[in-house]
């Protein structure tokens, strides 16, 4: 267990995280990224050399059939998985050069997450759930809740602040998750199948909301989806299959 704790410290302390302005123009920059799960001889390749750049101020959709590597790719982009090989640079920070602790802090400060299963804390109210990133950042609870209330208004849940997740519909829970992802004003938003657990109307509402409140100048939004009904919301659509990028419709370049 101590080993696990120390794991975060095993890398050489990295240089200070480069600001967005100081880094490359792309918010996300991947070169030759591969990922293999399991052992070298019998493992499975989830990514087989992915090159991708995601510009800020746009919504980029990662699409493809199940098992094509979408989720693995955004896990790597979000700093939750280490690639087997390749270079990953996010908002100017090269993940391979960040220590475990620095990477965790980087993630907390710069990346927002929207999960397919929402992952709200069942014991916290909607307002408290949405305020979690600010509390993680060390803000005083009262201030954090006050700031979060405004974001909750923006996602249309001003009247559900004190509801528990169990008292909300799936669409409402996902809107809470979006508020939580945006409350600390991250520069990269990563959304994993945000509409998969929702009906068509709720899915459309969530995507409209993401489009309206999440896509901002200086913020990149990556949405993993296999729901073709929401393709129209993306500025660019990255098609993946078998661990590779097949083609891109829109601005990002391979």
């Amino acid at each position: 267990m101590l080993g696990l704790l120390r794991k975060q410290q095993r890398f050489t302390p990295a240089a200070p995280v480069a600001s967005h302005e100081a880094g490359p123009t792309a918010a996300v920059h991947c070169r030759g990224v591969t990922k293999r799960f399991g052992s070298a001889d019998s493992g499975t390749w989830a990514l087989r050399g992915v090159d991708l750049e995601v510009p800020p101020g746009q919504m980029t959709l990662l699409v493809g059939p199940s098992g094509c590597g979408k989720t693995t790719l955004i896990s790597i982009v979000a700093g939750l998985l280490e690639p087997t090989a390749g270079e990953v640079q996010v908002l100017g920070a090269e993940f391979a050069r960040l220590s475990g602790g620095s990477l965790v802090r980087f993630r907390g400060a710069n990346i927002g997450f929207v999960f397919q299963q929402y992952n709200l804390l069942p014991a916290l109210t909607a307002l408290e759930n949405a305020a979690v990133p600010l509390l993680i950042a060390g803000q005083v609870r009262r201030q954090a809740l006050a700031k979060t209330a405004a974001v909750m208004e923006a996602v249309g849940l001003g009247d559900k602040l004190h509801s528990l997740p169990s008292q909300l519909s799936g669409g409402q829970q996902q809107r809470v998750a979006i508020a939580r992802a945006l409350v600390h004003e991250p520069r990269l938003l990563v959304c994993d199948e945000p509409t998969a657990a929702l009906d068509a109307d709720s899915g459309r509402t969530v995507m409209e909301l993401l489009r309206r409140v999440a896509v901002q100048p200086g913020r990149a939004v990556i949405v993993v989806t296999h729901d073709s009904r929401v393709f129209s919301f993306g500025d660019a659509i990255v098609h993946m299959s078998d661990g590779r990028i097949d083609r891109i419709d829109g601005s990002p370049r391979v």
Partner: protein
Amino acid sequence: MHWIALKMLTGDRSKYLGLIFGVTFATVLMSQQVSIFVGIMARTGSQILDVRDADIWVMDNKVRYIDEVPGLRDNELLRVRGVPGVDWAVKLYKGQVRARLADGNFRNVILFGLDDATLAGAPETMVAGDLADLRRPDAVIIDTAGYEYMWPGEPVVLGRTLEMNDRRAVLVGVCKASAPFTTLPILYTRYSEAGRFVPKERHLMSFVLVKAAAGVETQTLCSRIEEQTGHSALTRDQFFWKTIRYFLASTGIPVNFGITITLGFIIGVAIAGQTFYLFTIENLRQFGALKAMGVSNGRIVGMILLQALVVGLLGYSIGVGLTAIFFESTGHITHLAGLHMYWQIMLGTGAAVLVIVVLASLLSIRRVLVTETAIVFRT
């Protein structure tokens, strides 16, 4: 993050209460059983501690504990008195006899025969009557618990008579005495009267009680007495612990209590550990989400330990409280009187509970730490 950890903990009421119940159960079992065990062990030597006016007990050198004592020859008293450094030395009888009550019932009793002149070894606190009345013919004094045992539910009446060895005894007082190992009445009489109450034995003197002269080191005097008389001479504490060691080594009491206490600990670990682990597993995705959102492993460990400590503190407090209530509410029951929770047992139980919650949380911590944060992206 502490606030979030506590909200996560208390949010699932059933598991939260289950965790507290597990720790409470273990606490009650351990603190109550250890207290009773220690109380019973202390009872085995309680009559030794009740004799406060003597420093040294002299006895046959083969004596193993206070309830199994052969008589010494009367002239041994004089030999002890002749040892340099002895301030005074008196004889003491201690044994068991059968007492027949006026209504024909009979009870076994513990009988103390005190030195006629000094009454050394007499009880310190009288509840009824006067210690000086012990000098009257046929006089005996009984302890309060013994009175209830002999005459249950009846008010204290002095002047009652009973027979021991077909000799009449008159109750002249009731005193306080520490409860003995066996719940037998304790009777005090003069040594000369004890000679009448005890069926004929050639040597009646069980012990010689010795007071060391001023400035004489007790342990040195013990060695000197042993050297000159060939008998065993022990300080009060030494004899007390010798008796306890006998019961620890020669009876099944420690094994039985030990099993109960160990079971309490194991059950505590099992209930708290399993419930806490399930609680963590159910929250694994939430912990993963927190890690993804920037919570370090160290803070996650802190959250889990905080949850465990809160559960441990609450369970321990309730458990110790229940044990205290038990002893408080049973204090008036004669055969349970005198048993109580020692502060050392409270501390020891607290340490055991700490071990329980730390063990319970270690599994959970390990599971959270080894879980890939990317679990949050899986359905």
